[in-house]
């Protein structure tokens, strides 16, 4: 079996794969009528491709790759706003490296940097705080990007800046939250999902209770999973067993890290600093109610939107995707990356057009890195236009 010898415990993996096949047969899942399981987290998407899990499991299991890569769901207008801030002469604009190559309507942050803007890749908002301390005459802006896993880091950094009285540090907050887009997907009349593999590290922060609505209101199972390949296989099996037994519950496969109540210190900091926006735009999914966070008035001095008059709600900024880009269809499970006419031709990791090709957690980049490249080459050979 492809890849399986790379597992730490191939024997255990084989056992779970056999049990998955048994459960899939019991449900009656087939290639033509598969059980569709969405992994929400981009890290899980990456792991599924890296270990070829989609090829290892019963053919009646179909993985749908969810909207859990924060870089991939970032609308182009947000990138444009980053650049608008970054091009101000007094600004040092700091960001995680993942966001550097995301295309805006005109350029990416990397291109803005090449054109002279002071854009710096950092590892942590702590780096941005240190830059603010060392550069008191400059305005240091941190691009606050990511789901609940990274939100505590910017909340705690804002609180630290407040304690120090650092008046040249702001956060451009584009943090988003996981449960609202799941609800939006479940409300979609075209929704075809049978269950979810829930995010591990988001749940480490928020706990498992925020997912209760998934079984209670929609009758779908969700299993919070770790990142090892065996974790993912066991979680798929747990989803299948729930379906086979007619159950729909929130289960926690990653109990060695995730607690039901989450991390109290993280949640307290996030609640103190942030509040939900009425709605927020997601690339490919559109506006979703209460899915993004803004900085509370108490911490307005550290809000880049307030300081620079740029950002969400400052004006009508809805901008279409690049022509021909199908990221939205891929993100909602309605198209495979290889179904997009730009995949592997105009759109590659070196020259990404759509956001899903930018990050290693994006479905298109994962397809390209772990197999799509070969498939694209084969298609080209068969159709040498």
């Amino acid at each position: 079996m492809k890849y399986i010898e790379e597992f730490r415990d191939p024997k255990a993996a084989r056992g779970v794969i056999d049990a998955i096949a048994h459960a899939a047969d019991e449900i009656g899942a087939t290639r033509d009528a598969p059980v569709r399981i969405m992994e929400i987290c981009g890290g899980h998407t990456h792991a599924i491709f890296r270990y070829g899990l989609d090829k290892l499991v019963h053919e009646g299991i179909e993985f749908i790759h969810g909207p859990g890569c924060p870089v991939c769901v970032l609308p182009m207008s947000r990138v444009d706003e980053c650049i608008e801030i970054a091009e101000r002469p007094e600004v040092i604009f700091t960001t995680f490296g993942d966001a550097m190559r995301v295309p805006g309507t005109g350029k990416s942050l990397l291109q803005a940097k090449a054109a002279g803007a002071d854009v710096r890749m950092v590892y942590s908002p702590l780096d941005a705080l240190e830059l603010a301390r060392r550069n008191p005459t400059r305005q240091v802006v941190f691009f606050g990007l990511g789901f609940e896993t990274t939100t505590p880091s910017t909340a705690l950094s804002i609180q630290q800046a407040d304690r120090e009285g650092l008046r040249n540090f702001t956060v451009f907050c584009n943090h988003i939250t996981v449960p609202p887009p799941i609800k939006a997907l479940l409300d979609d009349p075209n929704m075809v999902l049978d269950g979810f593999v829930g995010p591990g590290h988001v749940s480490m922060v928020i706990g498992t209770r925020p997912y209760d609505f998934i079984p209670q209101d929609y009758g779908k199972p969700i299993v919070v999973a770790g990142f090892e390949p065996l974790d993912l296989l066991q979680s798929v099996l747990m989803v299948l067993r729930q379906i086979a037994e007619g159950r729909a519950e929130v289960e926690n496969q990653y109990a060695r890290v995730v607690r039901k109540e989450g991390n109290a210190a993280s949640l307290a900091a996030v609640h103190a600093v942030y509040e939900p926006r009425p709605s927020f735009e997601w690339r490919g999914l559109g506006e979703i109610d209460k899915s993004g966070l803004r900085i509370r008035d108490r911490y307005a001095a550290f809000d880049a939107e307030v300081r620079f008059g740029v950002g969400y709600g400052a004006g009508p900024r809805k901008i279409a995707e690049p022509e021909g880009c199908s990221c939205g269809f891929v993100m909602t499970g309605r198209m495979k990356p290889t179904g997009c006419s730009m995949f592997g031709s105009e759109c590659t990791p070196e020259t990404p057009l759509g956001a899903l090709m930018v990050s290693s957690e994006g479905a298109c980049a994962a397809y390209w890195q772990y197999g799509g490249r070969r498939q694209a080459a084969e298609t080209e050979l068969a159709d040498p236009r």
Partner: protein
Amino acid sequence: MCLGIPGQIVEIADAATNIAVADVSGVRRKVNVTCVAGDDVNDLVGCWVLIHVGFAMALIDEDEARKTMETLVSLGEAQEEFDAMLAGDRAVAGIP
């Protein structure tokens, strides 16, 4: 970004601001430990933690740390984390 990296807390650098030093695969990094600190932050010395963008977000055991690091290496994410840390150091130092 979402996978983080395991490290072991080796000393407390500044208890007032919850800044500790973690050993991450032999490299010493300052990390914020607010989210894992109990009553006395000094109790964290020797503990293994999962670090996300410079913040310790969960206490883990040594076996979990080892397994997580193996998975990260296999996914190519460990190198990405180290590269990002170096990029951050350069950014702070003003090295282009």
